[in-house]
């Protein structure tokens, strides 16, 4: 990686150590949304924050090359489409948004029917929304000198 971009070497090393754990914690929060506090809303933003940490530490060019903007758009569309598909597949159970999958045993990971899949779909939406917000301030903020036209 280019040593000149981003912050100092200490910040980069600590970020390299930490970012995997943050990503793992976000995935844990998303997958355990139906049995513990959290859910797709919080976990998606935690996953987005791990990418934002990388972006702040290593400079935006490195990360924009790895996660380009069309890929984020694809993730956003995939999340929305997945949530709508879950809703439409509820017609197997009789009506829109019915919980037709087998319910399982409480306090296990595979329980509660369609709720974990919906959590994953919402998490995709939140990840892409957070990344869009950061792209907004990072791409727009060149601060071209303002024009003085009277």
């Amino acid at each position, binding site marked *: 990686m280019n040593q000149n971009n981003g912050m100092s070497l200490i910040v980069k090393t600590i970020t390299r150590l930490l970012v995997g754990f943050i990503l793992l914690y976000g995935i844990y*929060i998303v997958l355990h*949304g*139906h*049995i*513990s*506090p*959290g*859910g797709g*809303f*919080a976990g998606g*933003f*935690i996953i*987005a*924050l791990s990418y*934002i940490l990388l972006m*702040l530490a290593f400079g935006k060019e490195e990360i924009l090359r790895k996660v380009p903007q069309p890929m984020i*758009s694809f993730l*956003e569309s995939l*999340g*929305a489409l997945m*949530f*709508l598909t879950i*809703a439409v597949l509820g017609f197997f159970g009789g009506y829109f*948004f019915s*919980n037709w999958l087998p*319910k*399982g*045993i*409480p*306090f296990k990971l595979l*329980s*509660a*029917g*369609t*709720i974990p899949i*919906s*959590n994953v779909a*919402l998490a995709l*939406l*939140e990840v*892409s*929304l*957070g990344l*869009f*917000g*950061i*792209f*907004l*301030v*990072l*791409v*727009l*903020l060149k*601060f071209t000198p303002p024009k003085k036209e009277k």
Partner: protein
Amino acid sequence: MIEINLLLIFIIIAAIVAVEVKDLLSSVVAVGVAGFGLVISFLALKAPDLAITQLVVEILCLIILIRATIKIDLPFSTSGRWFVNTLACIAFLVIFLSYGYAAISSLPSFGNPLMKTSNFYLGETFKTIHATNVVSAINLNFRAYDTLGEATVLFAAAIGIMAIMRKKGKLTKAGKDDESE
């Protein structure tokens, strides 16, 4: 009971500092203080899901606002009809507060919510859905239509952000940029 009032007073002081301080960066930091006070009061009010979500959203909001306000500082200008404007604004707020006081005196008292529908949700979540987080079950099973509408709003907001981020304007018939960048 008393700790929630103290937390609210803390949030109000942070909000007043955020509104009245002159430096924009200090103002954004004061908003962050108010947001983290809100996180602690969510925890005290027994809403851990909301505390996690508000914490993460607060950090993202702070990053966006700090990147927007860094290196920008505006002098405090008190030109124009400063006195008349402030007086009219405060008069409006006093009227608003008096009507609000009359409205909240007809609500049920603090600590005794009406739980007609919520009792149904609390019972059904464990019995038929087999989920144990009731907030998640309400969001994604009982009231999934609300979440679908919320996803639509998020999608529209993302499209709006993409439209703002776009560098070039629409092409006119002559093939030139319409936007005077």
